């Protein structure tokens, strides 16, 4: 199985992000710090497994790492290493 078959969308981390943020985050936009492309979180590429402790979000244009989510030991850690900015609309989601 190659990497492409393991690729999901940002939609797949909607639940994990809801544990950190109040609002739904999949319609939030972000800018890639590597190539500058702007897109909604839901359209970015996500790599994760059912038993993995987290997920890696990659830019759908240049494939650089945007965000890493890890959950374990009673904590959520959110690394935003590859983002220039994150824009969260007021009162999005349900």
């Amino acid at each position, binding site marked *: 199985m190659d990497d492409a078959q393991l690729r999901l969308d940002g939609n797949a981390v909607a639940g994990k992000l809801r544990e950190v943020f109040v609002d739904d985050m999949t319609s939030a936009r972000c800018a890639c710090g590597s190539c500058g492309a702007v897109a909604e979180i839901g359209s970015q590429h996500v790599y994760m497994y059912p038993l993995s402790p987290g997920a890696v979000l990659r830019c759908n244009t240049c494939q650089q790492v945007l965000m890493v989510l890890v959950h374990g030991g009673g904590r959520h850690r959110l690394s935003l290493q590859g983002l220039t900015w994150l824009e969260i609309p007021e009162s999005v989601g*349900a």
Partner: protein
Amino acid sequence: MGRVTRRVTETPRVLTLVLAVPDWPGHRAGQHVDVRLTADDGYQAQRSYSIASAPEDSPRVALTIERIDDGEVSPYLVDVLAEGDQLELRGPIGGYFVWDVDASGPLLLVAGGSGICPLMAMIRHRAARQSRVPTRLLYSSHSLEDVIYKHELDRLAGRGDGLEVIHTLTRSRPQGWSGYSRRIDREMLAEVGFAPEQRPLCMVCGPTPLVEAVANALVESGHPADRVKTERFGPTGG
């Protein structure tokens, strides 16, 4: 928590669970829920399932589950969970892969296998609101027996309200089948879909290889990338 009120066999491998969720806050067509199972020893497993029912059906929520043979969650949901049982849900979740009848432009829906589920919520939402937005569903299945919601799709497409359903069967066809019989490609999308000038919204859901092939073909054909929304079903362990 939801309580199972009905189990509907859709195909030999696919089951719909209809749940009553008393405190359901309502959802948008295309959203999903996370289902969490907890074993007696505290071990937890969680999976995401798209909501297949229309927002107008709330507080009834329908989840359509494909049984993955070596999966951890889906065999329990399909084989063990009975009417009256409780199920732990979190949601609705997601604000990206959603569609409301008020959205502009015609709607192209492309599904592979159980990728039909969130798109079915959109089709049911459209029907419940008596929308006449031109809508085409291109639906790829292995065989006719694997087509989920077949009778309901036939009935809705027969209402003459602007919904068209086009099937392609990639593995086996019934005798006399005159429809498509290959994987979705650029040529098929051009025949079935709307021209880029019509500014359709394209919603694509299915296994990752199908979603990427379709999304790439749509963008190469001139559809703006921000009008092509995808939801990939990966090998998530079922």
